[in-house]
C-alpha cells in the first residue's frame, strides 16, 4: 500500500519507538502536522520557541537514554533549532531533528522561508540528510536513528521538502542499516586491555577520571567494580557527575575549573590516570602542558578521534566503556591502597571545598543543599549555565545514576527550562528540579507556557542574584570589578509565574527556604521559587583560566587581589 511521505515519516518514528515529539508548526511541515493525529502514539508537545524543542529533546534523550525528537518548519523554524543542535552535538546527546524544507523545485532559489539548513548544521550534526524523494524516507529515518543513538551519540537532522511529505511511495521499513563508512568499534582491543590492566595492577597512585561516556554506556556497575576492586579514587568531569555515587567513600567529586580542590590535587599528583568516557576538555585539564605531569594515561573512549587530541596517551582503548570495563575488570587484581587513599583523604580534609561559609544572608549553596535534603537525593537536577550550574554540580550530592543534566560543552544559557521539561517528560515518576540563574532563565522563559499547557511538573528554583553572576565573577577577579553589562534586572518572577498560571513563591531569608521547598515538593504540578540570593557570591574553588589545576583559588576573597592583574587576562571563554 502506498503512503504519503508524511505517513512514512510517522510510521518510521513509531517503528523507532518514538513516544514524544517536541515541535512547532509552520508552512513547510503542515502536511506532517496534518498527518500526526493518525498516529496517536506519537505525543506532540508544542513548545514556545524551537530552541526549546531542541533542548527538550536533548533533556529527554539524556534522561531516558532514548533518542529525543524535535521538529520545526523551514527557514526561521530550522534556524531556531541551531543552538539546541549544537548543544546536543557538543554533549554527545542523541537527538533527531526533523525540519520542513521548501518544495524541491524551489530549493536553491531563495524561496520564501528557505534556508540551507543541512549546510548550516553540517559542522554541528553527526550527520544530516536532505530527503530527495518519499521512497528514500524510511531508509533515511532508520539510518538517522541508528547514527544518533549508536557509537558516540549525537544529533542528526532530517530536512524534508514539503512536496516530499505529500508524495506517495511504498512503505518498507529496512530491517538492517548498512552504512559502509560507519562501524563504531565497540570491543576494546584485547592487547590494549591487557596493557591497561598491567598498568593498573602495578600503579602506585592511580585515579579514575570518569565522564559522560560512563553514563551513555550505562557502565555504572562496571565502574564501581573497578574502583572497589583496585581501590582507586573516582573523580568525574562535570558531565560525568552521577556516573558514580557521590556518597561512596571512593568518590572524590568533580575536577576542573570549579572542581573540588582535593580532586584536582589528586589528579595533578596521580601516577596513573584512567580516563573513561571523557575527552580532556580544557575546563577539565586546566593548563594543558602541566596536566597530571607525572601520570601515565589510559584513555578509554568510543571515539578514536578523541584519543591523543588534547593529551598524549600511553594506553589508548577504543571501545564502548561498558564492554571494555567488563573485560578489563577480569584482569584486575584486588588491592588495598591504604597509603594513597589515605593521602587523598588527607587532601580532602585539608581542602574542604564544599564548606558553605557562615553567613546570615541567603546563600545559593545553602539553597541547593536544602533542595538535596528535601528530595533525599532522589531528584533529577537540571541546570542553567553560570554560577547556578556550578553550585548545583557541587552542592547536591548525586548518589543515583544519571541525575545531573547540564549543558557542558556549549554552556548554553537557556538550556535549563526546556531541558528540564524534556527530562520530566522522560521521567514522569521522578522529581525533576531546575536550578537556574536569573539570566539563563530569561532566555527561554516562554517555555513556562508549555509546562503549564502540558502539565509537566518541573520544580523551578531560580537563584536570583541580579547579575549575570559568572561573568560578574570574572569581572571581579580579572577586570578590577568593572561590572559592565552584568547587572541584570528581572521581571517579578512570582508575578510571571502567576501570569503563566503556575504557583510561585519568593524567598528572601534562610528561614523561608525549607518551607518553600516543602511546598514545591508537595504540590502536584509545576512550581516556581524565586530565591533572592546573595548578589556577589562567588563560585569556589576556581582554577583561573590558564592556570594549573592545583593553582585554585579556594576560599572566598582570599588571594583575589593577587590575580587581578591585567597581564593575566583570561584567554578562554566563560
Amino acid at each position, binding site marked *: 500500500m502506498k503512503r504519503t511521505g508524511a505517513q512514512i515519516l510517522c510510521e518510521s518514528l513509531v517503528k523507532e519507538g518514538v513516544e514524544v515529539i517536541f515541535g512547532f508548526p509552520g508552512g513547510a511541515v503542515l502536511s506532517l502536522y496534518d498527518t500526526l493525529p493518525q498516529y496517536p502514539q506519537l505525543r506532540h508537545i508544542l513548545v514556545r520557541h524551537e530552541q526549546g524543542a531542541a533542548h527538550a529533546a536533548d533533556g529527554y534523550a539524556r534522561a531516558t537514554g532514548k533518542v529525543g525528537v524535535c521538529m520545526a518548519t523551514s527557514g526561521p523554524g530550522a534556524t531556531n533549532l541551531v543552538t539546541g543542535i549544537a548543544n546536543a552535538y557538543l554533549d554527545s546527546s542523541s537527538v533527531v531533528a526533523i525540519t520542513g524544507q521548501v518544495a524541491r523545485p524551489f530549493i536553491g532559489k531563495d524561496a520564501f522561508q528557505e534556508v540551507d539548513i543541512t549546510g548550516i548544521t553540517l559542522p554541528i550534526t*553527526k550527520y544530516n540528510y536532505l530527503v530527495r524523494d518519499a521512497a528514500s524516507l524510511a531508509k533515511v529515518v532508520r539510518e538517522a536513528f541508528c547514527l544518533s543513538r549508536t557509537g558516540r551519540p549525537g544529533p542528526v537532522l532530517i530536512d524534508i521538502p514539503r512536496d516530499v511529505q505529500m508524495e506517495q511511495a511504498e512503505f518498507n521499513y529496512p530491517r538492517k542499516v548498512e552504512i559502509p563508512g560507519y562501524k563504531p568499534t565497540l570491543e576494546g582491543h584485547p592487547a590494549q586491555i591487557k596493557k591497561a590492566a598491567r598498568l593498573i595492577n602495578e600503579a602506585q597512585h592511580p585515579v579514575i577520571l570518569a565522564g559522560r561516556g560512563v553514563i551513555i554506556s550505562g557502565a555504572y556497575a562496571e565502574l564501581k567494580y573497578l574502583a572497589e576492586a583496585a581501590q582507586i579514587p573516582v573523580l568525574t568531569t562535570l558531565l560525568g557527575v552521577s556516573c558514580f555515587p557521590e556518597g561512596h567513600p571512593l568518590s572524590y567529586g568533580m575536577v576542573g575549573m570549579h572542581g573540588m580542590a582535593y580532586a584536582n590535587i589528586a589528579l595533578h599528583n596521580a601516577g596513573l590516570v584512567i580516563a573513561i568516557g571523557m575527552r580532556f576538555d580544557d575546563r577539565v585539564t586546566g593548563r594543558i602542558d602541566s596536566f597530571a605531569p607525572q601520570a601515565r594515561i589510559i584513555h578509554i573512549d568510543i571515539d578514536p578521534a578523541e584519543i591523543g587530541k588534547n593529551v598524549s596517551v600511553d594506553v589508548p582503548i577504543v571501545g564502548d566503556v561498558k564492554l571494555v570495563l567488563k573485560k578489563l575488570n577480569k584482569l584486575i587484581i584486588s588491592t588495598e591502597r591504604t597509603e594513597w587513599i589515605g593521602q587523598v583523604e588527607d587532601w580532602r580534609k585539608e581542602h574542604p571545598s564544599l564548606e558553605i561559609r557562615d553567613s546570615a544572608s541567603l546563600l545559593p549553596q545553602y539553597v541547593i543543599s536544602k533542595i538535596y535534603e528535601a528530595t533525599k537525593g532522589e531528584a533529577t537536577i537540571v541546570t542553567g549555565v553560570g554560577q547556578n550550574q556550578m553550585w548545583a554540580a557541587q552542592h547536591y550530592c548525586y548518589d543515583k545514576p544519571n541525575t545531573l543534566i547540564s549543558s557542558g560543552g556549549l554552556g548554553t544559557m537557556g538550556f535549563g527550562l526546556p531541558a528540564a521539561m524534556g527530562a520530566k517528560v522522560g521521567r514522569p515518576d521522578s522529581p525533576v528540579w531546575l536550578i537556574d540563574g536569573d539570566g539563563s532563565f530569561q532566555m527561554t522563559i516562554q517555555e513556562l507556557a508549555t509546562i503549564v499547557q502540558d502539565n509537566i511538573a518541573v520544580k523551578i528554583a531560580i537563584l536570583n542574584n541580579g547579575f549575570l553572576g559568572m561573568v560578574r565573577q570574572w569581572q571581579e577577579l580579572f577586570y578590577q570589578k568593572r561590572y559592565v553589562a552584568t547587572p541584570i534586572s528581572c521581571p517579578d518572577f512570582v508575578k510571571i509565574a502567576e501570569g503563566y498560571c503556575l504557583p510561585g513563591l519568593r524567598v528572601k531569608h534562610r528561614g523561608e527556604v525549607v518551607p518553600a521547598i516543602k511546598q514545591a515538593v508537595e504540590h502536584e504540578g509545576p512550581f516556581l521559587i524565586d530565591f533572592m540570593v546573595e548578589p556577589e557570591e562567588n563560585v569556589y574553588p576556581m582554577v583561573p583560566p590558564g592556570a594549573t589545576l592545583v593553582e585554585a583559588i579556594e576560599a572566598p576573597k582570599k588571594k583575589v587581589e593577587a590575580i587581578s592583574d591585567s597581564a593575566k587576562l583570561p584567554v578562554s571563554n566563560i
Partner: protein
Amino acid sequence: MATAKHTLVALVEDKPGVLNRMASLFRRRGFNIESIAVGHSELPHLSRMTIVVNGTTAMVEQVRKQVDKLVDVVKVSDITGSDKVARELALIKVKANSATRTEIIEIADIFRANIVDVASDSVTVEVTGDEDKINSLYNLLSGFGIKEMAKTGRIAMTRGSLVRSRSRHGRGKG
C-alpha cells in the same frame, strides 16, 4: 616538531555534499590543506580522494581520524611512508615567438611533456608527473615568461606487488 607533507587517500561515498563535508571539516579544525583531488574509483558509488596536508605527524594523524569519522568516508589511509605513485598534471602557457619556440619544445620533450596548443605568441605545454618534475619544468620555462598556469591537485596510490600489476595491466612499476 617538524612538519612535512603527507598524502592521505580516502575512499568516500559518491553522494552530494561529500566534498563539502570534507572541506568544512578542514576549515573548522584549522587543518591546512595543500590540495585535494577527487574522482570516480574502480568501485561503483565510491570516489577516491587524495588529500595533501602539511603538518606534524601527530596533527596529520588527527586529520586522518577526523576524516575517518565522517560517515561518508569508507576508508582513509596515510600513504606517505608507503611505496606509491603520485602524479599531478599542469597546463603551462609560455610566451613564445619564432626564435624561442623550438627551444621551448625541446625542453618540453626532455620532460616528456606534450605541446597541446601553439599560437603566434605562445605555446601551451601539458605535463604530468610528481611535484618536483612539474616545478623543475616550470622553473625552466619561466625564463621565457609564463602567461598562464593551471594545475591539478595530487592523486596518488600505493604501488601494487610487481606480479599483480604486471599480470593485470601488462606494465611494470610506472
